[in-house]
């Protein structure tokens, strides 16, 4: 039977072979290089072949009449050509054009560290953010191992490319976060309010960012929260400083997660040596609720809400009263809500709507003084995106930001009440145009109006990137950036204008074989910085916009996940040269927060045999300056350099139980952040000073993470791997 059929087919083939059309030729790239393995066939038939190593092909067909030749190869635009098949030879030399694919096309990298797995130009992934030793689970701590940042141990906040910490803004799912840091006492480091495990992606832009973002002179940190959880689960975390319980319930198109966190540093601080006395050790309670709901085919609605209460009392010496200890007591209440909805509208239009609300109150008591500080922020944004084609996308949107800030100060005999409310209305538009997969330009503009200051600003933004080879690219960014003066000044005056910084960034990046190198040169020109003349900060006439400054530097980054098997390391170095004349500076000077050389070396290694993932992080920051009122020259004293070697160790005890330990500054380097001085001189005309120390030289943490699921195979590895 089979044989019979076979013979039949042979016969059939033999018959048709009598009249054949031969199609022959060569397939090349645009530059003439041969393309082997290209697919050449007659559409709708079984007549086809592949090109050989020289790109040549020969295709025979018995078909006659009109036909269509199809030629294709991965990542190239398919070629089609109608032909007339009439038993002769058709010669065809075809140059295939590289297909345009946004994912593999050039991306703008100037100033940007994008943490996402999908993009090729990746340097730091979300996982890295979480697993860097020394970060101690703080988003901002982890970012301080990236180039462009300066570690300020007495602050804990982000200082980017010669910018002050207020010049950086944080956005969660598109919404501005009014109060991203926890409240702390002067000269004691703070942390971010948000658990890094909430986020799946991070974009850290240290300059030249999109027109979508305003009110930031130096940097924006864009955090994107996790999408839909995979299954129902219960996470239990026990740390040496607190406990956390999180439960997730999933349904068809949505999920809800409730989290309860309680932290108390009391037991820890009684065991580990501390540099300060804490009559009431830091304690915080947080409840959070997060909801995810899919809407329609493409939409996703996210809602997050948290209630947080924390407080502490720390004892500090009152240098104006011959060093008598005085208790600094702080209690903080923070409510935060954040919602976003991303969806496609029809075939092409896409919309991102976002909003956030913050209510934050600090109650502070020290000595005879009480301060109540309150911030209420409401932020609304709507962005529309329209792709005219693969290569041309237009984005535009509007933003409303309302901020009410009030401060009530009670001293023995006086009461000061100050407040202001500002509404900012903004609109922006931006076009992204790919001339080819090698060249992209993003051009946009932003208009802001501040009601309180009664000022309009216009910020043009421009960035481009050019791919030199498949692996390497150059990127340039330029733009004007405006930000309203700091809240503490706006309390007393609205007769000042927004401050301005112009960014010029030039960057080179090359990635191949799990190795990335990046170099970035930048220059920032600060204008219209607010100056305060004289001691009378409460007089509106003492403020003007006559300040200015500059920052320039070089950032280097090298990451290698290949050379050492199971090992992964990166080295980040920043050189910074900056001076400014702002606030109460008597002249242009290097600001306290800037350090000339910053180095971070991070290493992680997976050891399968003992199911462990140890990591190390060494950080060095060259001496920063500080002002000694006893010295005639402003900001002329130098602190000690900052040095720290941090270690962490994760151990997989059981498949759903992880043990984790970390210690900072294992080598016990002495770190000091300059001196603070009394406000008034003593009888000899001297200002009394005292060294600013970190709250402890070393920090230890031990933790146990347990995950319970129905299947019992998930763990929180992602958290600390």
């Amino acid at each position, binding site marked *: 039977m089979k044989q019979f*059929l076979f013979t039949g*087919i042979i016969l059939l083939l033999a018959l048709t072979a009598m009249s054949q059309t031969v199609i022959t030729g060569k397939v090349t790239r645009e530059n003439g290089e041969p393309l*082997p*393995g*290209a*697919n050449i*066939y007659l*559409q*709708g*038939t*079984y007549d*086809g*072949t*592949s090109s050989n*190593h020289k790109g040549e092909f020969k295709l025979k067909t018995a078909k006659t009449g009109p036909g269509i030749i*199809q030629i*294709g190869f*991965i*990542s190239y635009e398919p070629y089609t050509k109608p032909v007339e098949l009439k038993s002769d030879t058709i010669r065809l030399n075809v140059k295939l054009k590289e297909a345009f694919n946004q994912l*593999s096309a050039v991306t703008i990298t100037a100033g940007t560290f994008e943490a996402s*797995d999908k993009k*090729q130009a990746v340097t730091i*992934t979300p*996982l890295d953010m979480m697993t860097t030793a020394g970060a101690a689970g703080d988003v901002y701590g982890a970012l301080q191992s990236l180039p462009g940042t300066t570690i300020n141990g007495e602050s804990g906040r982000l200082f980017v490319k010669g910018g002050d910490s207020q010049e950086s803004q944080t956005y969660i799912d598109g919404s501005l976060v009014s109060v991203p840091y926890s409240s702390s006492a002067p000269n004691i480091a703070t942390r971010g309010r948000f658990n890094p495990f909430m986020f799946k992606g991070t974009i850290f832009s240290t300059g030249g960012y999109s027109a979508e973002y305003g009110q930031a002179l130096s940097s924006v940190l864009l955090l994107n929260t996790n999408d839909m959880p*995979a299954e129902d689960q219960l996470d239990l975390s026990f740390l040496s400083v607190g406990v956390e319980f999180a439960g997730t319930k999933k349904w068809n198109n949505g999920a809800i997660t409730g989290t309860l966190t309680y932290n108390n540093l009391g037991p820890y601080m009684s065991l580990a040596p501390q540099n300060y006395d804490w009559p009431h050790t830091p304690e915080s309670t947080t409840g959070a609720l997060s909801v995810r709901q899919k809407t329609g085919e493409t939409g996703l609605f996210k809602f997050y809400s948290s209630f947080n209460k924390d407080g502490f009392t720390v004892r500090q010496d009152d240098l104006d009263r011959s060093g008598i200890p005085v208790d600094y007591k702080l209690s903080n209440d923070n409510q935060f809500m954040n919602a976003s909805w991303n969806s496609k509208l029809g075939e092409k239009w896409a919309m991102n709507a976002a909003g956030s609300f913050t209510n934050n109150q600090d109650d502070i008591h020290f000595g005879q003084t009480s301060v109540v500080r309150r911030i209420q922020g409401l932020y609304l944004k709507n962005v529309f995106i329209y792709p005219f084609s693969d290569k041309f996308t237009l984005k535009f949107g509007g933003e409303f930001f309302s901020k009410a800030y009030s401060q009530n100060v009670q001293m023995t005999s006086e009461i000061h009440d100050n407040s202001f409310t500002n509404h900012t209305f903004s609109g922006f538009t931006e076009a992204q145009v790919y001339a080819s997969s090698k060249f992209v330009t993003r051009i946009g503009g932003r208009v802001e109006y501040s009601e309180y200051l009664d000022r309009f600003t216009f910020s043009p933004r421009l960035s481009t990137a050019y791919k030199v080879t*498949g692996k390497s690219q150059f990127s340039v960014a330029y733009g004007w950036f405006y930000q309203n003066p700091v809240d503490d000044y706006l309390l007393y005056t609205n007769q000042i204008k927004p401050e301005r910084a112009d960014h010029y960034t030039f960057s080179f990046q090359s990635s*191949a*074989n*799990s190795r990335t190198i990046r170099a970035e040169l930048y220059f920032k020109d600060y204008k219209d910085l607010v100056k305060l003349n004289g001691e009378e900060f409460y007089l509106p006439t003492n403020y003007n916009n006559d300040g200015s400054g500059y920052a320039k530097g070089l950032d280097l980054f090298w990451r290698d*996940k290949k050379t050492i098997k199971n090992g*992964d390391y990166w080295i980040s170095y920043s050189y910074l040269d900056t001076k400014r004349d702002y606030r109460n500076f008597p002249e242009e000077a290097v600001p306290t927060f800037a350090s000339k050389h910053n180095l971070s070396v991070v290493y992680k290694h*997976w050891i*399968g045999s003992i*199911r462990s993932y140890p990591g190390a992080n060494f950080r060095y920051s060259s001496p920063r300056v500080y002002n000694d009122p006893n010295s005639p020259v402003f900001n002329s004293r130098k602190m000690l350099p900052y040095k720290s070697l941090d270690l962490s160790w994760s151990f*997989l*005890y*059981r*498949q759903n*139980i992880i043990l984790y330990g970390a210690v900072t500054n294992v080598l016990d380097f002495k770190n000091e952040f300059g001196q603070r001085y009394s406000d008034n001189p003593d009888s000899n005309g001297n200002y009394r000073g005292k060294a600013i120390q970190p709250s402890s030289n070393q920090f230890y943490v031990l933790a146990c993470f347990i995950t319970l699921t129905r299947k019992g*195979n*998930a*763990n929180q*590895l*992602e958290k600390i*791997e």
Partner: protein
Amino acid sequence: MKKFTLIIAVVLVSLVSLAQKPEYLQTMGETLGQFANCQSVADFQDLGNKFEMIANAETSEWLPMYYHAQCYILMSFIEQGDAAIKDSYLDVAEKSVNKLMEMVPGEPEVFVLQAFYLTGRLVVNPMERGQEYGGLVGQATDKALAIDISNPRAKLMKLQMDMGSAPYMGLDPKSFCPAAKELLASWDNFKPKSPLHPNWGKDQAEGIVKGCQ
């Protein structure tokens, strides 16, 4: 007797379809036969080209597209170059897998293929993609097994994933050896619907069992 009837039925069915599409069956049979000779990326590329051509000619058949995707997934495993190149092969496979999901919804072999494709994505960068793609592979194999509990390829995909992630889960990969042996022993109990239907994987199962000794 039952078996005999089955053979008759199969022969009848193939006769009927043969009568309709002799070229399809013959070309598919030949092209599938070449799988055994493929070793390099270029070999699989040529083979994938053929399946693409057949898929283009026979728009109502899902098997050519199935094998087209499989070629590209295998290419991503063999490729020694950059992650970007591996991902570009998998981009091609992804398109075919997605088309197959629409063409034959509920076909367990397509869910197996999807699991295979996702495994390919994971293998490109296990450290960073392990958590996410491991879960997705599990979901795909679960769907395949929910439709056909006896599908050996679905079990194989699951087993490979379990053994691959065992060190990260605090488990000994060898604890899956009994399951591997059982799978191999029962492999031939599964009969593909036709000679053209997916019938691969026994070699891999043998390889796993060998590694257990």
